[in-house]
């Protein structure tokens, strides 16, 4: 053991991702080499700044994005000052001064001071309500603003600006992105890709003001009220987020006499102009470039750490920039060069129908850049190919442009050891290979938990998997199966579970868990509902539904709301009702003080804000069947007016809708299931976004499947065309049963159909008459077992009490 005194003192200014990553690398290489002190201005331990957009859209809490908690600093013997600013660096005396007057001497100093958002210096810049999007504090300000204000403007249509805009939109704000250039993300995308991205974001609800230069902030009072553009036009805005670039934080370095351009100038080993002073990350400038993304800062940190530990290292030679937009529903990737230029070979594919655009640029046959929109599946591999300057081959071309899967991929062998595979968490290939070899890991999950690789955006998961495959070789297959368990209680996949249930004749979920060696005797919140579904699907007559394994809404047959009240939605078959029914609903709503009566997207009425104990009373008084608005089952069959009244209608869509809804209601499915029936191709009932949509034509019905209007929108595809109503019923029955039997629990038809393939579905449901007949027989058997759930609960006094009545404890002492 070396004595503390013998250790050199390393001081890091900046407790962000660049500084702490450098320290992590040092601790890995030479844990005893330095006594380490970190000084940070923010009051938090190191967190994942690139995930602030998740905090903003509330999909993650602040705790979720902490990378190194307080314990980590303690365990590694690091002295940490948070909420502390460094005010002076004395490079001669080799010491720094903090804002509370503390002097700290150093042997080596690392500046990792990051950057600040670029703020416009225009009239009104001192008004309130103008913030950058940089740290947790900004994020909190934005969350507060969303509660108080409605109209937001984001200045800057780059990566950060768009993520901020999406976050504010999700918080319910009316958001306009203001951009200086005509194309958004013009530094990463060409015109075509940029237009596609903008169109996609517009459909999500973001507005754009492009080609606009902001010249003043408007507003009479202290608070900003709008923006004034150079062309004279104005935009109303009560809240402005600046995302028009960043400025390296260089004040400290300048004052200390270091060479500073745009950033603190460093060489290929992150050395500044002063001896023993280094700069890493967004605050520096390397070969004329100040980077603002995470991957370069990790690569710099790795080089600097090796240099500081006296380990031989390749010099840092700059980073191939790549960009992936972290916005749900938008798949955009860009890396390396992206604009056409003389001397470059362009491989281009633009599918306007599927809204996919791919462009790969080659110089001398080598891949040097590319843009992917709408299909990011090969993004991780493309990035590796660009990094390594791989020569385009037929196989790579097929992978990128065609529907063909990559041929095993020997590409991971080409990745250099020190190259970063996971850009979000700065994990190199070597690190991954090491943990596989040294710790005997066999799954991506284990690698993720240990190294952080693929933990954040998940984009590199395929590469991590390929590395695992490459290292394990023949042993990989058995390993692969291990990670497909339906939950952490078992290593068995859904298909294996289903096969065992059938072969071994298991009827209850307890039997399944016991016979198949579940780790957790009573299962977990993932497998309990799933097993209950699979058992009910396989043994419709024998399996007794396990109410305690259902999620709350299905357990109570009502929709629980955020305040603990409930929603009740009675059936309105095909969206058809009568004056008598409407009157009854209105009377009940008044009697029970229903807070809100809403017409749903599925053509019926939702009574909201009902007290728990009133729910069964309302069922009783309505006397209508449950609309299953809470269930993984058929929700509604939306219909248009059809031939009964509509001048264009060629088919009686209402009648068909009612027939379908009555026939297939109440049957459990893997996920919710929505249908629509249209009397003509004008499609007023919107078949294209339903799990199953029917469109009437003269003399025929067209049946579309796999549509989804939800989180991941997908257009339904034509499965077949049939002539008679009976054929519709039969095909729909066979389709639903095939979906019930082969989908994973919670898998919507849109994902299921992409996994199984439409061709296979058509073969099984439409072309193969035998299999169709068998499917219909099985669904009929299942349909015989369904019961009206509201009546069922009302008829069972004890169950009704247990589900809906609260127990009042007597007050006072016994």
């Amino acid at each position, binding site marked *: 053991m070396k004595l503390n005194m013998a250790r050199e003192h390393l001081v890091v200014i900046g407790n962000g991702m660049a500084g702490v990553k450098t320290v992590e690398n040092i601790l890995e290489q030479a844990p005893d080499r330095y006594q380490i002190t970190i000084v940070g201005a923010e009051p938090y331990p190191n967190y994942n700044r690139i995930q602030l957009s998740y905090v903003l859209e509330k999909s993650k*809490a602040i705790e979720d994005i902490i990378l190194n908690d307080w314990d980590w600093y303690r365990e590694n013997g690091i002295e940490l000052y948070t909420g502390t600013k460094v005010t002076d660096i004395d490079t001669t005396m080799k010491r720094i001064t903090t804002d509370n007057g503390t002097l700290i001497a150093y042997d080596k100093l690392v500046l990792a001071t990051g950057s600040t958002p670029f703020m416009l210096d225009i009239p009104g810049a001192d008004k309130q309500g103008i913030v950058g999007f940089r740290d947790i504090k900004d994020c909190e300000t934005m969350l507060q603003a969303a509660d108080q204000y409605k109209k937001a403007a984001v200045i800057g249509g780059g990566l950060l600006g768009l993520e901020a805009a999406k976050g504010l939109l999700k918080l319910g704000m009316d958001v306009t992105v203001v951009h200086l250039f005509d194309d958004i993300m013009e530094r990463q995308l060409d015109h075509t890709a940029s237009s596609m991205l903008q169109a996609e974001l517009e459909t999500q609800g973001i507005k754009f003001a492009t080609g606009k230069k902001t010249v003043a902030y408007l507003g009479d009072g202290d608070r900003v009220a709008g923006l004034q553009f150079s062309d004279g036009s104005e935009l109303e805005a009560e809240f402005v987020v600046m995302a028009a670039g960043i400025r390296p934080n260089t004040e400290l370095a300048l004052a200390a006499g270091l060479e500073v351009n745009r950033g603190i100038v460093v060489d290929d080993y992150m050395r500044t102009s002063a001896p023993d002073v280094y700069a890493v990350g967004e605050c520096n400038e390397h070969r004329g470039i100040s980077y603002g993304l995470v991957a370069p800062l990790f690569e710099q940190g790795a080089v600097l750490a090796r240099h500081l530990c006296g380990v031989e290292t390749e010099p840092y030679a700059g980073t191939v920039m790549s960009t992936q937009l972290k916005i749900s529903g938008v798949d955009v990737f860009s890396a390396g060069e992206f604009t056409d230029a003389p001397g470059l070979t362009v491989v281009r594919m633009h599918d306007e129908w599927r809204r996919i655009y791919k462009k790969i640029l080659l110089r001398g046959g080598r891949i040097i850049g590319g843009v992917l929109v709408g299909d990011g599946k090969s993004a991780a591999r493309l990035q590796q190919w660009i990094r390594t300057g791989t020569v385009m081959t037929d196989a790579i071309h097929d992978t990128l442009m065609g529907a063909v899967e990559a041929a095993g991929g020997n590409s991971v062998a080409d990745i250099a050891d020190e190259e970063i595979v996971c850009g979000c968490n700065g994990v190199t290939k070597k690190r991954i290979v090491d943990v596989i070899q040294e710790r005997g890991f066999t799954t991506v999950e284990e690698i993720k938990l240990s190294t952080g690789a693929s933990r954040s955006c998940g984009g590199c998961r395929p590469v991590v998997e390929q590395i695992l495959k490459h290292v394990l070789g023949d042993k990989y297959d058995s390993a692969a199966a291990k990670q497909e368990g339906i939950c952490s209680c078992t290593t068995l996949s859904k298909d294996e579970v289903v096969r065992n249930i059938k072969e071994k004749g298991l009827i209850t979920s307890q039997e399944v868990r016991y016979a198949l060696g579940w780790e*957790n005797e009573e299962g977990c919140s993932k497998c*309990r509902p799933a097993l209950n579904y699979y058992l009910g699907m396989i043994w419709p007559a024998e399996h007794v539904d396990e109410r*305690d394994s259902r999620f709350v809404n299905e357990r109570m047959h009502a929709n*629980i709301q955020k305040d603990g009240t409930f929603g009740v939605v009675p059936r309105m078959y095909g969206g058809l009702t009568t004056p008598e029914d409407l009157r009854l609903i209105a009377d009940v709503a008044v009697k029970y003080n229903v807070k809100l009566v809403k017409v749903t997207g599925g053509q019926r009425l939702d009574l909201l804000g009902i007290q728990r104990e009133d729910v069964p009373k309302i069922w009783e008084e309505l006397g209508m069947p449950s609309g299953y608005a809470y269930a993984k089952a058929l929700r509604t069959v939306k219909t248009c007016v059809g031939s009964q009244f509509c001048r264009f209608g060629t088919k009686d869509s209402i009648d068909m809708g009612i027939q379908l809804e009555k026939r297939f209601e109440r049957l459990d499915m893997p996920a919710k299931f929505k249908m629509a029936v249209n009397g003509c191709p004008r499609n007023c009932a919107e078949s294209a976004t339903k799990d199953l949509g029917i469109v009437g034509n003269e003399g025929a019905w067209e049946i579309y499947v796999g549509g989804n209007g939800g989180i991941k929108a997908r257009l339904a595809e034509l499965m077949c065309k049939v002539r008679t109503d009976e054929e519709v019923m039969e095909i729909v029955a066979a389709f639903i049963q095939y979906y019930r039997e082969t989908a994973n629990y919670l898998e919507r038809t849109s994902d299921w159909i992409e996994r199984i393939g439409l061709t296979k579905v058509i073969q099984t449901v439409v072309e193969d008459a035998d299999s169709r007949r068998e499917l219909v027989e099985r669904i009929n058997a299942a349909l015989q077992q369904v019961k009206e759930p509201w009546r069922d609960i009302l008829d069972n006094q004890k169950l009704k009490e*247990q*589900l809906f009545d*609260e*127990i009042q*404890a007597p007050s006072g002492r016994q």
Partner: protein
Amino acid sequence: MANSYDYRSVGPVDQFPQRMGRVVRMEGQEIAVFHTTDGKLYALENRSPGPKGGTIVEGIVSGEVLFDPICDWKINLADGQVLAPDSGQVRSYPVKVEDGQVSIGVPEKADGKREG
């Protein structure tokens, strides 16, 4: 000072279905009572420890563990402790079963007043 509790009777055991929570109101407090497969009864404050709030009575019960219906955290029914990788604690109340009758205890303070 040893904790002393003031127990209130809340009815027979069979009012509490196994593996499904039930709400009990006691002096303005909402308590979720759970009955495990092993026949044990537990009482927790009906409030999710997670960041999104909400109630826990609707959660899935597995052995001695409750899965929070909102954030899917795992809560130890016996003491309300949130299990790793998450952390936190839900307030728990002692439960007694005598002659098939369930009663729940509210802590009593030294001056005889109960905690609110």
